[in-house]
């Protein structure tokens, strides 16, 4: 856990610098101070996308190698991805009410697809709890982990495919339309959130390994060895 603490400490430093840049950045012309929420909203969403790609990668690797570490990677990343998707939804709602006048709108492609993605990955976590057999659990979860990742590009490009309430991507090829100070704050926060994700992922994988070891130690070992007495006098070898 020493490495985890070191990455977390580095993430805290970068996050503190990001917070300073957010406060120092000028208020946006239309959204005023509310625009500062986007400096944590966008990184949360980016983290969710990254986490679900890692889940898919872990799932594919488990299907190829069948090693528990890949299943642990997929599960750990999905859990953190759900956490950050939830945060992206909540910060989006807090920002949306004063700027758009609504907390949430099912008619908006980005909001609806993000909410569905959140529910699907909650389902992924629920599926993992449906069985105690690690092999069966990994086999079932890996299929959903691979299939569910198709939502990520759908959520990302939803704003380009269907023009509703949500804006199109701010950072895009050919230059960004936002103030350089705002862009700098956004990029530093993006780095801070990525470091937070790496630290949490490392920590969750360590805890996952310990949980797996504890679960296998608790498995009944005597059940298979103790045989019912043979009444015909024969001896089991």
């Amino acid at each position, binding site marked *: *856990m020493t490495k985890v603490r070191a990455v*977390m400490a580095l993430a805290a430093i970068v*996050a503190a610098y990001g*917070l300073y840049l957010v406060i120092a950045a000028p208020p946006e012309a239309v959204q*005023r*101070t*509310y625009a*500062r*929420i986007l400096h*944590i*909203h966008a990184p*949360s969403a980016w983290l969710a996308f990254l986490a679900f790609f890692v889940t898919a990668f872990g799932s594919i690797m488990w299907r190829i190698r069948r090693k528990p570490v890949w299943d642990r990677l997929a599960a750990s990343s999905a859990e*953190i991805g759900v*956490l950050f998707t*939830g*945060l992206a939804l*909540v*910060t989006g709602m*807090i*920002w949306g009410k*004063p700027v758009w006048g609504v907390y949430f709108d099912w008619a908006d492609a980005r909001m609806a697809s993000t909410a569905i993605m959140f529910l699907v990955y909650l389902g992924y976590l629920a599926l993992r709890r449906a069985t105690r057999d690690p092999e069966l659990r990994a086999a079932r979860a890996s299929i959903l982990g691979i299939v569910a990742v198709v939502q990520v590009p759908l959520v990302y490009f939803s704003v380009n495919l269907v023009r509703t309430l949500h804006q199109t991507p701010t950072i895009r090829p050919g230059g960004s339309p936002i103030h350089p100070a705002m862009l700098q704050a956004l990029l530093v926060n993006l780095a801070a959130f990525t470091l*937070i994700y790496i*630290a*949490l992922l490392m*920590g*969750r994988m*360590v*805890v996952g390994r*310990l*949980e797996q*070891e*504890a679960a296998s130690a608790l498995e009944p070992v005597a059940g298979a060895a103790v045989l019912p007495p043979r009444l015909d006098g024969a001896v089991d070898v």
Partner: protein
Amino acid sequence: MSEDAVVTLAYSVTYGVVLWYAVRLHFRHRRLTRRS
């Protein structure tokens, strides 16, 4: 609610949840290593 209060709420929720998850992981790790 003032603009600053809304922004503070968003940041408090985000960093609060991340901190809660990190602390939860820490205690889970401590419980599991003590058992072994």
